Structure formats: structure tokens, C-alpha cells
């Protein structure tokens, strides 16, 4: 699949990607290397993987990282209870005890044992510990997992690996070197409008333009949590759900629906109705 086709296909499943991101995905598939996507919260990092899996008609396997994530949660674990039961029932021979039947596959092992190449999403890798990151390097470079009791399992098909991070901690140079890199920033006005139209085709064009303009203006304000694309989509859905079709005519529901955009008390206080009226007045 060349880049133009990939871009078109992504747009087909409702993901508007810029040229650089398309290039990153294209190369990730061509070179078989993982892709690290960074950027502020809410710009669609996780969504990239979801859209790609839909385009490729591949399974999406997701590993959500957190502090304290270890190999038994990310790779595999033996099903002890089942092994014990099998021993009690004397149905298991010793050599069958450590077989596929008693193996609990966790996302990483699952991803490399698929018949058809899946999309593996390793979400918020910066939340996991350094040790786990080191382990991940091994899996990502060789696409194989060694289980002492069974031997080495090598990938049948290479998954497309997408990692996301948003700067909770600095990632190791080794991991960065192994990965392709794409930085997603908040989109400009046209792109964001295209995203909104792709996601909510029924929305009135004028309202869509207003929504995008207000969100773009809010991003320039000094807020603690800058509203992302997800918030923008929520807000548009809320407005259309309330039957609003012109922002400047309805300050009340505007203020009421701001809960979709502003997620902290300070930000709410920073945008009282006068400020919103000013912003809307500018864009209308």
C-alpha cells in the first residue's frame, strides 16, 4: 500500500492524518520497525493504532502500561490453578504440564503468535518502569519470547508495533533509537475541521466551523489542560445533541456544555461567560 492510498484509507475510517504521520506509518510497515508517537494528551495518539488496525483489517492488541507492570502481566504466565487441578485429576503427564494448554498469553506473547499480523499498541510506555522498557527492547528487536519451560517462541508474523508516550518520564535512548518517531501536535484549523467533518458528518457546517474556531482560540488561552481533539469531538456531539446550531445565539448551553472542554476547576474559572462571549464573538 503506498502512502496516498494509506492516507485515503485512514480518512475512510475517520482518521485524518498529516503527511508526516502517513510517512511514519508507511515506513514502520515497510521496515518492520516500531513507531513511537509522542504529543500532548488528546491529539489522537492511541487512535492512530485503532485506525491502522481497521485499515489493515487486523486485530488490535493493546497493552496499557502502568507503574509496576511486569513480565507476567505483559508477556505470559503459567495457569497454576489449572496445572494443579490437572495433577489432582491425574490427567496430566509431566511433559504436557508446560504446554500451550496451561499458558496464559498476555498481550506481547499474544501479538507474536498470531497467524495474521496484528497491530500491537503499547500505550503510555512512559508509565512503565525502566526495567520493563529494557525487556520490551528485547521483544521488539527480535520478535521472540523465551519461556524457560517451553523454549523460544519466534514470531509467526511481525506485528505492526505502535508505542505512545506523553512525557511522564524520559524514555531511554536505546528505545528511541530502535523506534521510528512521530510527534503529533494539535492540528491547524483546516485539519481539525476535516477531522470533525469525518467524525460527525451530520453536523451543520456553520456550527462545525464555530466549534473548531472556539477550540482553536481556547488552545491559545493559558489553560492547565489544553482541550484535545477528543474533547472537541465530545463538545460538538454535546452541542448537536442539545439541538444548538449557532453558538453566538445560545450562551447558556454554551456555558453548560463547557464541561466537555475544560476539565479542571481553575480552567472553568478562567473562562467565565464573558470570556466565552468574547471568544465566540470573535469567531462568529
Amino acid at each position: 500500500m503506498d502512502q496516498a492510498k494509506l492516507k485515503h484509507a485512514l480518512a475512510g475510517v475517520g482518521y485524518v492524518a498529516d503527511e508526516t504521520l502517513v510517512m511514519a506509518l508507511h515506513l514502520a510497515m515497510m521496515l518492520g520497525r516500531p513507531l513511537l508517537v509522542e504529543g500532548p494528551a488528546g491529539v489522537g495518539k492511541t487512535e492512530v493504532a485503532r485506525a491502522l488496525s481497521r485499515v489493515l483489517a487486523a486485530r488490535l492488541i493493546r497493552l496499557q502500561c502502568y507503574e509496576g507492570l511486569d513480565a507476567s502481566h505483559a508477556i505470559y504466565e503459567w495457569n497454576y490453578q489449572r496445572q494443579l487441578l490437572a495433577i489432582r485429576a491425574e490427567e496430566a503427564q509431566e511433559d504436557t504440564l508446560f504446554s500451550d494448554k496451561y499458558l496464559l498469553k498476555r498481550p506481547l506473547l499474544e501479538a507474536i503468535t498470531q497467524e495474521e499480523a496484528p497491530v500491537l499498541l503499547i500505550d503510555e510506555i512512559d508509565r512503565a518502569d525502566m526495567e520493563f522498557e529494557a525487556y520490551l527492547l528485547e521483544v521488539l528487536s527480535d520478535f521472540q519470547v523465551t519461556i524457560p519451560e517451553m523454549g523460544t517462541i519466534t514470531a509467526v508474523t511481525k506485528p505492526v508495533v505502535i508505542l505512545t508516550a506523553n512525557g511522564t518520564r524520559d524514555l531511554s535512548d536505546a528505545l528511541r533509537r530502535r523506534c521510528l518517531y512521530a510527534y503529533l501536535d494539535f492540528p491547524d484549523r483546516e485539519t481539525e475541521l476535516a477531522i470533525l467533518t469525518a467524525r460527525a458528518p451530520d453536523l451543520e457546517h456553520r456550527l462545525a466551523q464555530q466549534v473548531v474556531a472556539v477550540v482553536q482560540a481556547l488552545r491559545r488561552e493559558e489553560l492547565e489542560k489544553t482541550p484535545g481533539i477528543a474533547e472537541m469531538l465530545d463538545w460538538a456531539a454535546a452541542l448537536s445533541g442539545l439541538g444548538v446550531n449557532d453558538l453566538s445565539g445560545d450562551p447558556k448551553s454554551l456555558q453548560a456544555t463547557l464541561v466537555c472542554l475544560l476539565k479542571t476547576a481553575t480552567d472553568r474559572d478562567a473562562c467565565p461567560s464573558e470570556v466565552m462571549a468574547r471568544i465566540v464573538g470573535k469567531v462568529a
Partner: protein
Amino acid sequence: MQTTRFPARATPSERMADFIAHLRMNGMPLGPTEGAAALEALTHVDALSPEEVRRALKVLLVPDADRWRGFDALFDAFWFNLGKTREGTTQASVHSRSSRPTLWQPHFASSGGDDTEADMTPSTEDGEAEGVEGNLIATRTEALSQRDLRNLMDEASLREAQAAARKIARAIRDRRSRRRRQARRGRELDMRRTLRAAISKGDAFDLHHRTQPPRPMRIVALCDVSGSMTVYARVFLAFLKGLLDAQTGAEAFLFHTRLMRVTQALQDHDSLRAATRLSLMAEGFGGGTDIGAAINALTDRHGYALTGRSIVLILSDGYCTGAPEALSQSLARLRRKTRRIVWLNPLMGWRDYAPVNAAMQAALPHLDAHLPANTLDALARLEPEFARL
């Protein structure tokens, strides 16, 4: 756009190697592997379209967000003749300014060859910044005068500053977590794991141990290098180096009107190269200060350095061109992300000094400690204060 003219015999792979060297010289961690990968990547894209090549090399070679922003300029400089890279290879010679690649030349346009003189005496712009009664007033101009920091690491007093910093770093380093974690040699038995292992094994008990892992407090130091702080800059830089040497994971930043991360530059074992890198970074050194903006830049762009276990150390005299409210807000934001904020103030040691200026007044409620740092002795006396934090 004018394209760079290469020697006719240069093959594409040679040009790519040169490009990689050019990026490496500008601070990207690249090696021969990346060069090969870049050539391979070009076989998968339309190598004749400059924009495609630019995007392909960008996603392939850039390691992080900072360099993501700078890549396009570097790409243009190399392929479109906007700057000329030095002939030859990466032997980064640091002896004289003229041997720096011309790519950087515009930044140094304002400083002539007389960097030794500029070393000690403040430039005229800084001179104007000092008010009539000798009050120091920060200016907003980003004075491009270069302070040469090359000699900063070879004086006895600087060594003393480093030693003081090391002591402080050590005082807050040796902390143990309250949690327990499995360990090969631990002080206590981990009963849960021992039993769990016994269940899967059968008869024999393998003993598992656990211990309290070290949870050091991490220092994030912000050093003000604006005009009013020039006299302290060298000794504070030595102080920062001491902090970094004694603690892995410590971070150091310089700020005047902008914030720069200098952790890696200060950790450089080659002190000559470190000094060169610092003076490259400290362009605008000796200009005005905007402490609030610098702190915001820290929380926004370098948030990974801030955890519940970090101590933020601000080395500044508190003379600031930004609005006091902005400073107060930025400190309040920082407050929520860190354990402690400590302000080291070189003016504190002066007789009759009281933090009455607006910026300090705004900052004080957010600080855990406001300590003097005007002499080496004062720095050395900080240790017990930090042990208590």
C-alpha cells in the same frame, strides 16, 4: 530554493553519511546503523521528491520532540545550501570560534573575536540595565553577548562549590522507600512469593527475599544566568555540576529569557567540550529574566523531570521582568507536581536584604525554603537544611 552542490563523485551513500555526520554534529545521537537504515528507507519512498525524503528521514532519525522541531532547519541547511557544513568529519574542534560550522555563525554575529574581554566585564547593554543607584534591574532584551565559560572548571573555589553541591546531593540521596520489593539479597523473607513458588514447584521451598528499594529524592536545578546574576554564574555552574556528579537522575537547566536543559552538557567528562557546549547554549547570557515563563517551560516541556520525589532548586536573585502574578501562578503549578521547592538567593546573605520586591513577594508563599547562597560558606551550610527536607 538553491540546492547544495556536492562534489560530482560523491555517491548517494556518501552524501547520506555526510548528512548523518551533520546531524550528529548538531546533537543527534546517530551512528552508522542509522545511515544504513536511512538508505534503506529511501528505497521505500519516492527518493526524488525532497518533501518525501524530508519526511522519511525525519520519522526515521529524530529521537525526541525537541529535535523534531529543529530537524527541518537542519535538513534545509544541509541539502539546500542554507548553511555550509564544515569540510571533513566530526572532529569537533573547539579551540577557536572560526572553526565552528558556519551554520551557527548567525548566532554569534554580535560578538566579535574579543571573547576574552567579554568574559568578565558586562556588555554595554547590561551596563544600562544597572540603574542609577546601583539597583539591578533586569531587561527584556535578549543580549546576544557571549560569556565565555571555558575557564569555569579549573579554579579552586569552583571546586569548593562543587564539593558543597555534592554534599547536598548526598544528603538527600540516601532515602529508602517504605514499600518492599523482591530482591536477590534482602533483609527479610518474602513469604508470599516463597509460598507461591512452592505451590508451582511442589515440595522444596525456594526462599525469596525482599528489601526496601532506594527512592532517592531527585534534584531539578534551575539556574538564573541573566544580567544581574552574571557575577555568580560561574560558581553556580560549578555548583550544578557538583549536583549532577553526585546524583544520577538529577537535572539542570539554565534560564534567562528562555529555558535550556544543560544536564548533558554539564555531565560531559571533557571539560573543554562541556564549556564550549555551555557557551553555545548560553547565547543571550546576561540579558533579562523571566522566571515565571522559565518555570512554565519546565512544567510544560520537561514534565518528566518532575515527580513526587523531586526537589526543585531555583538559583536566582528574584529580579524578574515578568509580572509577579505570572510568577506566582507558575510556582503554584509547579508546586502541584513536585515535592519541594527551594529558592537559593545570593542576595539573601547581604546585610539588610529583605525580599520586598514584587516578584519575591509573589514567590515566597509557594516556597518550602528561601535560603542564602552568596558565599561558598553559605553553600556549604546548606547541607543540614536539605537533610531535613
